[in-house]
């Protein structure tokens, strides 16, 4: 690395304004240092690692499910015998266990994997650094929200071990199925969700206040890194969309525990016996409240990913992002519109013309800002000098993968074509392209990119490349065939993969085996990553502050940054992505370098 190119800030480094109470740092006991630490970086890293472990766990559940889909009714190898009689007698999975795995896979991936990693992890670690703040605005609340997350996660996981098992009504938990008194799992799911929602709400307040209040001197809104914008919009989505689901969760909890019938109409009959409830509830109410959150939630999954990709693309193309302003406007528009498209998940619930026309139109409109962001990112590559580092490989792959996922959202958004595609594997294919090779790849990119900042060590590029190419190929073999299956009419959430139905016979059903093999291989290709992740902590190449020669503020702090982050007060002199400025000495003019150092 070019060490001379690193200018930590406007002032000499020994004028350590804030660092005086530093020494205490080392003396903190283990509890204060890790369990009750209020440092955003510690919390961020804890979020990230917990999130990664949940991703791995959610993926493991899915690998077990894919066995059942590939070989319906065959005993699960290796772990089958440990699963127990009420889950998999003699290693053969029961349908109710399949449903538990599916519901928990969805819930874990969305609420305990990706959001904690993307928002809790990257948001917490990177955002305050990027805006030059010493910490989050409310460090104690930050800690509280991280514990609420852990509590929620533990609650969910425990439900696997209770009588009746985990929730088994899908991650969408539609009543009356979810309110029938079959299992304790659903009650635990609701309690867990309430903790997770509380965690996200506290977190989002913290993020917004931090971004509004703690920006460094000179860091105006149009100089914010795109990642910060993405987190900002994301926080508003969480803040305003989550409470309705919390309310709905309380209502469903009442239905389960207090015998109310918010979501149950009168006159239900279960296995030949009338269900004794007061009735008069409305099952569609849940769906509205759920999707009122869950559509914004999918943008919560994608916006931080877009933010990460934008950072990495700017850094590795060595040029400014093309159309930064348009991207900022698009991301805010996207956030705003995401509140009025939710019912596109409900076209088949008996919707009339007016409502369906409204929601189809908003759905088509919301695709435009996504196209604008993606186009800007693509055009940013023009005239670049592209470095194919590991983070860049993942970030670049994000573009076409999100493209496939996003584009396949269009036929789903048009109600008549959704008639055929709704609740088939086409939908599964659509959203996995956005969340798995989309968001997860962006998160991998972010890990490779910011790992040196968090640890002072660089991750291995060779293992990184193996991880990338292996994952890229396998994940496409997992999800691409799902479009074929979906068009063929293969329903999702099928215990036997739809083997009973003649319209699935032939190619569609055979693809289940292909997908299974690819999914297990995808699992194998995560091993280089895990090795790289932990190995680099020990053996990784030590790096200085700015190993990627980047421009944003986090790279002016030490790697890893100490308590309070910056040695000198960071001051911002220019926009976020001033790479290859004509006439400049270096190909990057960092935000924190004063004008004269520039000339």
């Amino acid at each position, binding site marked *: 690395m070019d060490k001379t190119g690193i200018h930590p800030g406007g002032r000499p480094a020994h004028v350590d304004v804030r660092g005086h109470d530093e020494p205490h740092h080392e003396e903190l006991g283990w509890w204060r240092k890790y369990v009750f630490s209020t440092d955003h970086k510690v919390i961020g890293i804890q979020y990230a690692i917990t999130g990664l472990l949940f991703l791995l766990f959610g993926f493991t559940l899915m690998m077990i499910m894919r066995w059942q889909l590939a070989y319906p009714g065959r005993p699960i190898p290796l772990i089958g015998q440990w699963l127990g009689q009420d889950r998999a007698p003699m290693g053969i999975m029961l349908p109710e266990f399949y449903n538990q795995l599916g519901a928990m896979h969805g819930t874990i991936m969305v609420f305990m994997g990706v959001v904690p990693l993307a928002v809790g992890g990257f948001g917490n670690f990177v955002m305050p650094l990027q805006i030059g703040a010493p910490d989050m605005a409310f460090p104690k609340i930050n800690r509280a929200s991280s514990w609420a997350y852990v509590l929620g996660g533990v609650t969910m996981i425990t439900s696997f071990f209770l009588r009746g098992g985990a929730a088994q009504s899908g991650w969408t938990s539609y009543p009356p199925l979810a309110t029938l008194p079959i299992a304790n799992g659903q009650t635990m799911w609701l309690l867990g969700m309430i903790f997770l929602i509380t965690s996200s709400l506290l977190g989002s307040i913290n993020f*917004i206040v931090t971004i*509004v209040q703690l920006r460094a001197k000179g860091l105006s809104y149009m100089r914010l890194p795109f990642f910060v914008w993405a987190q900002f919009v994301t926080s*508003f989505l969480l803040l*305003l*969309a989550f409470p*309705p689901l919390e309310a709905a969760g309380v209502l469903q909890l009442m239905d389960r525990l207090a015998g109310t019938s918010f979501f149950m*109409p*009168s*006159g239900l009959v279960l296995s030949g016996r*009338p269900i004794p409830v007061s*009735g008069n509830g*409305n099952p*569609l*109410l849940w769906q*509205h*409240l759920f999707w*009122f959150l869950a559509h914004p939630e999918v943008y919560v999954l994608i916006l931080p990913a877009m933010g990460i990709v934008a950072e990495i693309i700017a850094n590795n193309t060595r040029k400014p992002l093309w159309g930064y302003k348009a991207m900022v406007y698009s991301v805010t528009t996207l956030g705003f519109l995401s*509140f*009025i498209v939710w*019912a596109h998940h409900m076209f088949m*619930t*008996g*919707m*009339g*013309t*007016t*409502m369906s026309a409204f929601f189809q139109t908003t759905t088509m409109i919301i695709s435009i800002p996504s196209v604008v962001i993606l186009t800007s990112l693509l055009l940013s590559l023009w005239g670049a000098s592209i470095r194919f580092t590991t983070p860049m490989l993942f970030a670049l792959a994000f573009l076409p993968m999100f493209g496939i996922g996003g584009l396949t959202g269009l036929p789903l958004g048009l109600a008549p074509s959704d008639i055929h595609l709704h609740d088939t594997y086409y939908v599964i294919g659509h959203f996995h392209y956005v969340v798995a090779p989309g968001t997860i790849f962006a998160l991998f990119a972010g890990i490779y990119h910011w790992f040196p900042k968090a640890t002072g060590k660089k991750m291995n590029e060779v293992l990184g490349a193996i991880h990338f190419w292996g994952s890229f190929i396998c994940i496409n073999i997992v999800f691409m065939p799902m479009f074929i299956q979906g068009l063929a009419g293969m329903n999702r959430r099928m215990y036997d993969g739809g083997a009973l139905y003649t319209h699935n016979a032939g190619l569609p059903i055979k693809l289940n085996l292909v997908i299974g093999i690819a999914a297990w291989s995808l699992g194998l290709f995560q091993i280089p990553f895990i090795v790289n992740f932990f190995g680099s902590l020990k053996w990784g190449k030590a790096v200085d502050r700015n190993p990627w020669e980047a421009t944003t503020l986090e790279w002016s702090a030490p790697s890893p940054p100490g308590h309070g982050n910056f040695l000198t007060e960071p001051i911002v002199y220019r926009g976020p992505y001033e790479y290859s400025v004509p006439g400049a000495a270096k190909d990057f003019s960092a935000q924190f370098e004063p004008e004269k150092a520039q000339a």
Partner: protein
Amino acid sequence: MHSDPAAVKKTVRGYLMVGAALLVFTAITVAANQLHFAVPVAITVALVIATMKGSMVAAVFMHLSHEKKWIYGALLLTLVFFIVLMCVPMFTLMDGIGTPAAAVGGEHPGH
């Protein structure tokens, strides 16, 4: 804002007056209820009074009559989405192509 004690002193009278007004409005609501208006009228009257009371609390006690633009901004955004949320009943009950099963006369809840 009210950082200087003299200025705060002046506002105190306002607080007390608003408090009194709120109590009066509460009395009016209850009194109006005793008149047994038709349901739509009663709903309108009660909600209009509640909104007036609510605005007084927000404007005076919560100092919303003179706040900073960020707070107005955040609340405006909330208001917009709150309105969307208030459309949920409309979305749930209107424009459905189905009819409630009870109305069809098919099912008869066994009460």
